[in-house]
């Protein structure tokens, strides 16, 4: 059986002036085969879609300042601007009420209610310092229509599949969008050691060679 191999693909810094599908097509040209899986980091997809905001551009409400204090220190929503960015897209009171219900849920041993009811962006937002420069000074949302984006990446590259994943250096890997036929969580587990790199590393694309055979061998 052909061997599974991961190939991180370096790029220049991609910005909102770039189209993610075109960029992946260009940088992976000649490197992707019909058995491969093309993976892309979620923050880069979001940045190319212009889904980021500078904290100075937000109008910080008292509710956001209050609510952010209930998020553990290292969370992306633990700052007033992180919380405000969530409230701006999901609704101030929806977020505040979800936070309250999440706290009540914890008393009864039910965790994760805030992230369930606070809107999809509650788990997707990256606060400042969460992305490579020059976006380290921005709050980055999750990508829009990730399942549409991966379809286009697959068509453009001719790969077996495409996936957008949220991977970090804490050995966490989450599927944000994946094409049909790919076992998302199993593929995401292949990225646990974060081949994209964080911070100043510029490898937002990773090709998993011979993924199709590997997945069929596991079924």
């Amino acid at each position: 059986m052909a061997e599974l191999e991961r190939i991180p693909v370096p790029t220049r810094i991609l910005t909102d002036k770039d189209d993610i599908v075109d960029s992946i097509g260009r940088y992976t040209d000649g490197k992707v085969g019909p058995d491969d899986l093309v993976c892309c980091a979620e923050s880069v997809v979001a940045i190319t879609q212009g889904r980021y905001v500078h904290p100075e551009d937000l109008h910080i409400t008292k509710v956001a300042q209050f609510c952010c204090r209930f998020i553990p220190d290292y969370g992306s929503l633990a700052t007033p601007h992180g919380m405000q960015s969530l409230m701006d897209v999901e609704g101030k009171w929806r977020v505040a009420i979800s936070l309250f219900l999440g706290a009540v849920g914890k008393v009864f041993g039910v965790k994760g209610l805030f992230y369930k009811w606070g809107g999809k962006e509650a788990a997707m937002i990256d606060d400042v310092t969460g992305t490579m420069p020059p976006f380290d000074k921005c709050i980055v949302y999750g990508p829009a229509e990730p399942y549409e984006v991966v379809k286009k990446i697959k068509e453009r590259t001719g790969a077996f599949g495409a996936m957008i994943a949220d991977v970090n250096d804490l050995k966490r890997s989450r599927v944000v969008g994946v094409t049909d036929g790919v076992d998302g969580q199993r593929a995401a587990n292949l990225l646990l050691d974060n081949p994209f790199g964080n911070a100043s590393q510029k490898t937002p694309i990773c090709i998993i060679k011979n993924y199709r055979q590997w997945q069929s061998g596991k079924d």
Partner: protein
Amino acid sequence: MFGVIDLLAAVIVVITACYLCGKLIIATRNKQILVVDEHTPFTVTERDDKSITLRTSLHFHNDGTSCATLLDCFARPQMPYEQYDGCAVSAKLEREGVPREDGYFESYIIEHKEAVNMIVYVTLTARKGLTLEEALSHMVSFPVEVIYEESGRTPCEYKKVRVEVTREDIGRAAGIEMAED
């Protein structure tokens, strides 16, 4: 009258209320407290015929109970030619151990009870055909402002500290006698 279920419900409500009150008290007390200590004495890092670069270190420590984020940090000398035009002054700041040629400051989290050193480089370049020694000997004391954007549990805000570069610092670092003006 009150039954077992009522009693149980009351206990649950009290426990929930206590838990939420506890969270509220802890949450309202959590805050970053970023403190900047006095800078270290200036030392010379580079010198040529026309310019000299001095270096000092500033100790930023977070005495609060939650993380502090430095979104930006830069140094700005306040040395107008109206005051003295024999030297051009520029300044650069970088996080200790993370040198960058581009002068970019990458946002950085200082965890509570932790610290980071910022290195400030001040370059003085002789102007108007003066030698470095001539230019420096008439140099006046001036401040370098270290401006930083801080956040944490409070909204982003710019703050600044002043680092005074005195005539005596310059004379001692450059090894020259300062002129009486």
